[in-house]
């Protein structure tokens, strides 16, 4: 009897699951009918797992801006924005599943993806060729995808890791009184052991050959809470500078270990993903003096934040629990959303004010021209630098500053404006893109022809 009851229970659970599935399918079918003048934005986010402290503010900023555009402007050119979040947990396989899940949603499919993980970027890059959906990886992703003739769908807007690494070398060179003074110096790279952390190595090695500094590579395994040995090595080798290329809980752990081993924080420089509030606050006072690159959006609030408060937060529409409002990563998420929206706006000029396909949005991304006046008009004054892209150059201009944590907030170093040296990076991009094209048997685009 007991046996029967057990199986009855099992059968019942299966039945419930089946019922769930079928009603869900019906509900979905109904939803599709209602869609009309809508532009669908997929949102790959991570609000759980080891990288949640960084993923949450970014996703909040991104979605809050989309809400603002709907509430304040009534969408983009009258086309309402719709979106759906999908939790990747920073895991590549889940990210790919999210991509597949969201790419076909909305009347015209996904507008553009922000994978928010270099690993996911690598995995979906191939898929984008087939699906014709732009992959925006601003400030991360594949460094070689600047080359739009090979990577037709990737947009590392505003900078890549090669740019970032180059800027950091230039910066410490300046501190030493000239790049030639780096000879014989020792630079340690403490990096997240994933494609993200490994990307800058190629450039740092290239620069090491030019200037004669020693490069010490210290990988930290995911998720990065075990760094004792890493910092013991730093204590032993006493590098002149430490570049930090971490993400999530790894960043704060690095700073804590630096405190524990007595490495001066003033000699530590983080990439722009290692320079946000969740990276330093857990380390308390120990983080004082630590610097990182700023990328586009530093911390603080501006005109656009007032709009968000007025149109979104005050109406009780805030995303998440308002975590991170006005913080570095929140603002970066906002800028990410804004650039995507601007690309759609730009494409609407050519294709009309209707829901656009990924391919049409790509045209917008390739003809992005956000100048200072436009930035001011959008309320992003002080949160980004002008950017303009083309079919060949999918990155646009790349410029960053340095900000330092003073124990309370990020303080921008006045007058520091870093621009990567394209003389070094360009040949590297070309070589790497050629290799990729050969491996994948890709036919290069002819940009001159497409323009004409």
């Amino acid at each position, binding site marked *: 009897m007991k046996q029967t009851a*057990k*199986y009855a*229970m*099992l059968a019942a659970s299966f039945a419930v*699951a089946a019922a*769930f*599935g079928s*009603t*869900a*399918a019906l*509900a*979905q079918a109904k939803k599709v009918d209602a869609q009309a003048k809508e532009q669908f934005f997929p949102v790959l*986010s991570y*609000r*759980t797992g080891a990288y*949640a402290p960084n993923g*949450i503010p970014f996703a909040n900023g991104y979605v809050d801006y989309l809400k603002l555009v709907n509430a304040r402007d009534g969408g983009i050119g009258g086309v309402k924005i719709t979106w*759906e*979040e*999908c*939790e990747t*947990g920073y*895991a*590549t*396989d889940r990210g*790919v*599943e999210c991509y*597949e*899940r969201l790419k*076909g949603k909305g009347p015209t499919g996904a507008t553009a993806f922000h994978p928010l993980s*270099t*690993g996911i970027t*690598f*995995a979906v*890059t*191939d*898929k984008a060729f*087939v699906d014709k959906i732009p992959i925006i990886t601003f400030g991360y992703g*594949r460094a070689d995808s600047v080359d739009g003739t090979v990577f037709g769908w990737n947009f590392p807007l505003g900078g890549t890791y090669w740019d970032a690494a180059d800027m950091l070398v230039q910066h410490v060179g300046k501190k030493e009184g000239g790049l030639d003074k780096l000879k014989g110096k020792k630079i340690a790279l403490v990096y997240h*052991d*994933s*494609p993200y952390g*490994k*990307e800058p*190595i*190629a450039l740092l090695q290239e620069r090491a050959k030019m200037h004669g500094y020693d490069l010490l590579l210290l*990988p930290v395994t*995911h998720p990065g809470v075990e760094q004792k040995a890493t910092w013991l090595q730093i204590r032993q080798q006493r590098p002149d500078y430490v570049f930090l290329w971490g993400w999530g809980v790894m960043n704060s752990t690095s700073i804590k270990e630096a405190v524990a081993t007595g490495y001066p924080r003033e000699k530590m420089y983080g990439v722009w993903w290692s320079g946000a509030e969740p990276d330093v606050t857990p380390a308390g006072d120990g983080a004082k003096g630590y610097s990182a690159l700023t990328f586009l959006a530093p911390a603080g609030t501006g005109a656009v934040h007032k709009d968000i408060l007025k149109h979104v937060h005050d109406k009780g529409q805030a995303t*998440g629990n308002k975590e991170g409002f006005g913080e570095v990563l929140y603002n970066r998420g906002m800028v990410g959303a804004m650039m995507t929206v601007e690309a759609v706006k730009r494409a609407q000029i050519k294709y009309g004010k209707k829901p656009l396909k990924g391919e049409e949005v790509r045209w917008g991304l390739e003809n992005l021209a956000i100048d200072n006046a436009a930035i001011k008009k959008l309320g992003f004054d002080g949160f980004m630098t002008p950017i303009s892209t083309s079919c060949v150059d999918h990155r646009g201009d790349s410029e960053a500053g340095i900000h330092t944590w003073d124990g309370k907030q990020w303080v921008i170093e006045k007058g520091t404006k870093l621009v990567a040296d394209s003389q070094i990076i360009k040949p590297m991009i070309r070589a*790497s893109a050629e290799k*990729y094209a050969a*491996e*994948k*048997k890709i036919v290069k685009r002819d940009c001159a022809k497409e323009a004409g």
Partner: protein
Amino acid sequence: MFYRENGQFKSSYGSDQQMLPILQDRAFMFGLLAFAFLVVPFVVRDYVFLSLLIPFLILAVAALGLNLLVGYCGQISLGHAAFMAVGAYAAYNLVLRVPQLNFLVVLVLAGLIAAAVGVLFGIPSLRIKGLYLGVATLAAQFFMDWVFARVKWFTNYAHSGSVQTAPLELFGWTVDSPVEKYLFLLCVLIVFTIVANNLVRGHIGRAWMATRDMDVAAEVIGIRPVYAKLTAFAISSFYVGVAGALWGFVHLGSWEPLAFNLTLSLNLLFMVIIGGLGSLLGSYFGAAFIVVLPIVLNQVPAWLGVPISTAMASHLEFMIFGALIVFFLIVEPHGLARLWAIGKEKMRLWPFPH
């Protein structure tokens, strides 16, 4: 009423040795295959292919392989994703360095290389057993993760440590659309199932099972434990290595060592245990269950229009997944395959109660 085997007599050795001795089973199997080959490709959306069916088919091959080791030979491995990684990177390097090889040859070679590595890490099984062995196989997991992340040759000096592959080509057939991938993988799975089925009912399978049930007793009746355990590791790793190559080339197309991490190993083990230890059918059920469940759980709230955040949905997914695993282990510790068997028993009598 319909599922009755009386009246079906075996009158030759051939019919006694058939893989599906009962007529109804054969009919069902052919029906299923016909459905899989002729109906599914026309009715299923791309999303279902890419996110559900293709991972399912590949992981079913891997689960078959792991089941041979854990379910039939009784040796626990927590590091099988490492052998998937070996297969994937072996295939990558073979394609890269010997481009004229046919992909089927590459698959077999990748499987063989994985088998060799599997035997190497299987050697401790001669000294230690049970969960001790399970934890010891983690050494394979972490060591292989490290090797592929660090030794640049394996990734062809890619600066990010991530490798890419070109679309598959088989005798001039480019396997790149979801349907083509699905059909190709389906064929692979069928071949591997037939081989596995014949292995486990042959002398080698019997040697494995004797070792599993009691290794000392097996030794007494003349089964060499070295032979039984190491062949199990070799063949299991071969399966898993092939699955790894397919996972890399057909499913991912571009991967990093993290793609074959401990989570995947644990998922493989879940598959064989939830599906049913020592049951080939169970490997299918387990693979389907583990592939489909998290994805469905994650989307149910959205489908039902329940307004909860993705964070909440993801936490719930974890909780329900964990609870369901425990629930299944409690309700049916012998796995889904056992449920199937019970269902079949009932079918014999249906619709009469006795």
